[in-house]
């Protein structure tokens, strides 16, 4: 008898959820909102600023071509290589800047921790898929572009359960 009651109780707890809103995020239409504009790092205090670790953004006016990001990536993903750029900056005599291969990058963000000149941050852009491997290699010019993203959905919790908007 107790078995029957147990089965009815188990069924009942499932049936109750028919009336509850779905928790699923409908991804391409809805996109989750993140904290801030991506992971950043303050080399003076040595502490980062919370944010999503997505694609990088490179500020050409700050980059000195010191290669510290590339050194930090050695032994982790080896995704960063320094390439020549056709730009003239007074602080970047060698005219080299990082180029990132997102086929290798693991998004650990240790390159951002390594940059002492506020030149390399990360952004909220995570949609990097492509049809070719070569399209995953982002040149310094591509990395300088600020991504255009719309992410606005948050988890809503009320008496009837949790849902995504």
């Amino acid at each position: 008898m107790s078995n029957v009651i147990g089965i009815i109780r188990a069924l009942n707890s499932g049936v109750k959820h028919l009336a509850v809103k779905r928790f699923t995020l409908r991804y391409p239409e809805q996109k989750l909102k993140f904290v801030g504009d991506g992971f950043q790092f303050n080399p003076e205090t040595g502490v980062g600023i919370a944010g999503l670790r997505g694609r990088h953004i490179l500020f050409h006016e700050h980059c000195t071509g010191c290669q510290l990001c590339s050194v930090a990536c050695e032994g982790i993903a080896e995704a960063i290589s320094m390439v020549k750029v056709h730009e003239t900056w007074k602080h970047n005599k060698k005219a080299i800047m990082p180029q990132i291969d997102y086929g290798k990058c693991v998004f650990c963000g240790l390159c951002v921790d390594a940059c002492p000149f506020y030149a390399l941050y990360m952004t909220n852009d995570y949609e990097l898929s492509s049809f070719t491997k070569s399209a995953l290699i982002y040149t310094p010019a591509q990395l300088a572009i600020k991504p255009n993203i719309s992410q606005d959905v948050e988890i809503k919790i009320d008496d009837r359960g949790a849902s995504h908007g």
Partner: protein
Amino acid sequence: MTTQLPPGMHLETVDDKIMTLNVGPQHPGSGHMRLIIKVDGDYIVSCDPDPGYVHRGEEKMAEYRNYIQNIPHLERPVIHDSSNILYPYCLGVEELLGIEVPERAKYIRVIAAELNRCIYILYWLAIYGIFLGHSTMFMWPAGDRELFIDLLEAMSGARVTHAYLVPGGVRNDLPSNFEERCLRQVEYFEKRLKEYEAVFYQNPLLRARTEGSGILSRTDAIRLGTTGSVLRASGVDFDVRKKEPYDVYENLDFQTIVLKEGDSYARSRVPYLEMFESCRIIKDALKKMPKSGSVRTKLKPNPKGGNDEVYRRIESGRGAIGYYIVSNNRPEPYRVKISVGSFRNLICMPYLLKGEKLGNMPAVYWGLNYWPVEADR
């Protein structure tokens, strides 16, 4: 006629009634491992677990990278529990390099570790549910896991491989209004967790399958050197967080969950009850945490350890994880040895499966809280 066999190999006599089955090495649940099972009809005669398919050489890799570069790859063995597997490494390196950790960072680490423990246990529970053919128990934990993933994403910036804990504290401070959001989601989750009781744990069909199967007695659990939930399900009160408290666990209010039965049901119930305790720890830590202050001690660019060695361990979702680190005046460690709970629990498998029905094999196997990728390292 005698045949010359290579050393270490022997011929087996074939019994017509016994059949050998290979379970795996393609993902019996998660990660590659194989169970060589001999069955007599529906009953298991012997079981020989065969791990090693996902050996990645993490320990050797750690010898060629400096103390900071080791962080992203040392969390790879258990990406669902990445804060907990990094925790002892950070504690060990801090002791080697003589780094002081700020008080706020200690609380943030405990919160990250407990959130991660919940993520791991929910994933484990989802697989346990689907192993037993209970697809609701697969959907619910997999969905509720998102609550914690979103919290850790706000904290660290990554959904799964966080690389958040570092020697000297944590990578970044908590975002604004994190405390409020964390409290709201954890309180909702506690309410949700109570629903699992009726649909899964008090379900007579589950109890009929798992109660009394694969019993591990208290003496056997100690003799075989098990750890974590397997040990606590057999009635041994041992939790590293209580017995050797690290960081701020001694200030926090929680209990060790101990069950006496030692069967597959008890082993599946201990992690479930531990999630309630994890929620308690998170709420308590949020209350007691200093509201402002530094979260990371600044290190020298390439820190070097002296001629020293250190062993630190913590309690993870699968048992005690210990790191033995040796340094020799270089920026890289000389040796890193990782001792994980999964591998220590694997040895129970031949003892527990003997005489069981083949259909009960998944319940016993996954109840051991065994994660193949972590065991192989």
